[in-house]
């Protein structure tokens, strides 16, 4: 279903937002099934890092609290452990919803979202994927560090140096040119198309 993401009007309980999420976010069609039992937030390994946790975030979605939802850090702290998914008594795919909500927030340009470690990391990671067809751990890490600026990047790289060194020693760091798959062009064509479809479907 094609529906523009409704404008935020500050109104609590704006079903427009809830409906949009139900219809456009990956797994959102199951979000209406949530009965607010708390099994997801309770089973989250780093729930303490989250401002709301999935359970409350879902209630906020229903309440139409679009701004608060999209500025939340909950989505970006998900470790994808899937504890919540297997525990949810209503089979709500919590992880998928969080992941896709994170993307929505990022795509809509919310600074709170764009500046998360997660968004930067994903950007670097996907850059490598698109460029080589595979992730080159060394290169995308560097790219990730650089997203914080050169000064910060040097600091981070330095901090990570002992690990890098030991991995290198253990023959677990790929050096030299990254492995590039043969079908990089083909892969990018597929990804472009997929992005186009998603945009068409969701309007963001």
């Amino acid at each position, binding site marked *: 279903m094609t529906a523009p993401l409704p404008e935020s009007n500050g109104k*609590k*309980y704006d*079903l427009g937002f*809830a409906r949009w999420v139900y219809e456009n976010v990956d797994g959102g069609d199951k979000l*209406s*099934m*949530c009965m607010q039992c708390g099994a997801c937030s309770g089973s989250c390994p780093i729930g303490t890092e989250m401002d709301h946790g999935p359970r409350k975030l879902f209630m906020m979605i*229903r*309440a139409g609290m679009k701004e608060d939802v999209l500025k939340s850090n909950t989505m970006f702290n998900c470790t994808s452990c899937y504890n919540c998914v297997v525990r949810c008594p209503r089979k709500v795919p919590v992880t998928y919803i969080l992941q896709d909500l994170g993307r929505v927030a990022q795509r809509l340009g919310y600074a709170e979202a764009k500046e998360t470690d997660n968004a930067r990391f994903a950007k670097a990671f996907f850059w490598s994927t698109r460029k080589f067809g595979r992730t080159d751990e060394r290169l995308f890490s560097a790219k990730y560090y650089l997203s914080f600026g050169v000064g910060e990047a040097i600091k981070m790289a330095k901090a990570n140096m002992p690990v890098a060194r030991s991995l290198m020693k253990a023959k677990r760091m790929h050096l030299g040119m990254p492995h590039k798959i043969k079908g990089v062009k083909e892969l990018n064509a597929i990804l472009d198309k997929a992005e186009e479809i998603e945009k068409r479907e969701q309007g963001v």
Partner: protein
Amino acid sequence: MSERKIGVYTCGGCGIADALDMDQLEAAAKEQKAGFCKSHDCLCSDEGVALIAADVAAGEVTHPIVAACSPRVMEDKFRFDGVETIRANLREMVVWSHPANDEDTQMLGDDQVRMAIAQAKKSMPPEPWTEGAFSETVLVVGGGYVGLTAALEAAAAGHQAILVERSDALGGMSAKWSKVMPHLPPYRDPQENPVAGLIAKVEASDKITVMTDTIVTKTNGMPGKFEVELTRAGTPSAETVGAIVVATGWRPYDATKLGHLGYGASPDVVTNVELEGLLGDGPVARKSDGKAVKTVAFVQCAGSRDPAHLPYCSSVCCGTSIKHAIQMVDADPEVMAYIIFDELRTPGTAEEFYRSAQEKGVIFVKGKVEKVDGDLTVTYHDALLGDDIPMAGLDMVVLATGMVPNSTNVEAPALELEDEKLVPLKDDINPAAPIAVAGYKEGVDAPEAPARPEPSMPEGAPILNLQYRQGPHIPMLADGFADSHYICFPYETRRSGIYTCGPVRRPMDMGEAGQDAAGAVLKAIQAIRNVKQGKGLHPRSGDLSYPKIDLNACTKCRRCTVECPFGAIDEREDDYPQVNPSRCRRCGTCMGACPVRTISFDNYSVAMINDMAKAVEIPDEFDEKPRVLILACRNDAYPALDMAGIQRETYSAMVRVIPVRCLGSVSMLNASDALSTGYDGVILMGCKSGDDYQCHFVKGSGLATERMGKIEETLKSMMLEKERVQTMEVSIADSKKVGKLIDDFVATIDEIGLNPFKGF
């Protein structure tokens, strides 16, 4: 019966002969003038049973006494046609609970035989009361879904039914519903309303007489022969019916009392019942301006679960709001529906209905509504967001009001009643009474016990206007529902032959109410078929005995008419009591109430109990062996004593136990007579009384406590200590406690000394 022939059969099995001297038992039997005493090493064996059967067949014995195991076992083996078998419990209550080959155990065994013989001497085979004609017609009061179902069920079981409806049309409340909640798989979608179909079936039935615009203005008589006056437009007519099913249903809680929830502030704040009238195939148009409703909020517990309004949960409102929301979303997928609830109650398979609404996008919000403004802004505290939230821009607010039982006819004025006719309403239970707790931690204050609901008359006229001594109403529980107080016996109202069902009994949905109607009809038919044969109804089902009153001795004190838990005894114009045998449930409360012991059953009387007690050999004061009489309720205390034996728990052998039908049947005279004949103490063992009473006859143990409270005076006049008579609440699960209770009592007797009346 020509001649009473008492024979004693002693059983030596199960260790009885190893623990007791069988010859001595025989001697005791002889001394009590039993015709004979035979012993067998296993009476319940084929040979043992054959031994008795042969004597019965030969006319040698009319009252075989089986001195063996408890009367609670082997009943089928010792049942012989044409004679009354009497049991002396030598196993569970003697050898299994007392030391073997002990002088005191032997005396106990001997006394068990003596008491049984005394019982046999008094017991008469009961003659059933079957006077006059009996009707097999079922009267169903209330023409809604439940009443229609009940009438059809009765007809399908081959009975004529009269269906009485107060209004001018059949169908009741639910006739207005566009759809109903699902109660068949897959439990997901609102279902077609069955009421129109039921009406058609009822109208087509040749077994059902429908009377609309009719109320019951008088009910007289008793099961099998209720005389009812049915009044239609001021004209009374008379009918005789066998049993009555009350299915008067419910009415919505008065929404005008819900001003805080915005009722009255806007035409678009409606109740769930009013919404039914607005629901059709298309979108709902709101009352104020006819605009299609696009956003709607349902406010749950509008009145229910609120001490200021209805303390109970109305059970159906969550499901009803779900149904409404689904109907509205189905009619117009753009509708936004919110359900604001405290606890969402879709028990059982109705959980599927809840999920179905969620799938359709209905939003459920946990919170408490604080106010609803005229502009339809609903302000509520969202429990999960922890915030007070004004929900604005709604097109309609629906108050999910609860159910008020029609246990009276509120359309007719209340009757002026004398105080004593209020009894069934006054002695109600308090469902909010606090539970027994061990106490509170240091620094934790106990909450104040909720106030007991004031006894009050319900508004409106009685449904059946019973012409009973105990008043015109069907007894109700504190919240006004005409329900049974029994979990295992939900149809046991306190008026025999009258069964309530559907929401007048308990808030329930149509799925449950339909079954409830069938259940009530079964009970009605059962009553009709049994009273015709003079058989008692639950819990002494099949009992043919009933109370007989010797009016020559009666002092017109009215205790029997007042205390009967079932309102079975009326007063004649000359103030003498009048027993309505088929209303009677055979508990004997009247017998226990009668100060001049003039009420008795053929096989059960105050005199019989006294004779049994007196048959016990009381050792003289120099033996220093006290005797304590225990009158034990046969339903709970007696089984508990039995199970103490089964568990091989031991207790003092100084006690002599007589099972009674109910503690209500125990007269003060049983206690005072026992003391005057040398017993050192008397224990009345019965069920828990009070709010959560467990007495199968409603108030037997409560009455016993009350009566024994009054015995103090008598004891004082006899110069006896009040501790000698005690009422004990013993539950059926007290097998491990009851022995200690007995031992403690015997120790108390030891302390205060033996009864000085011994040997008088």
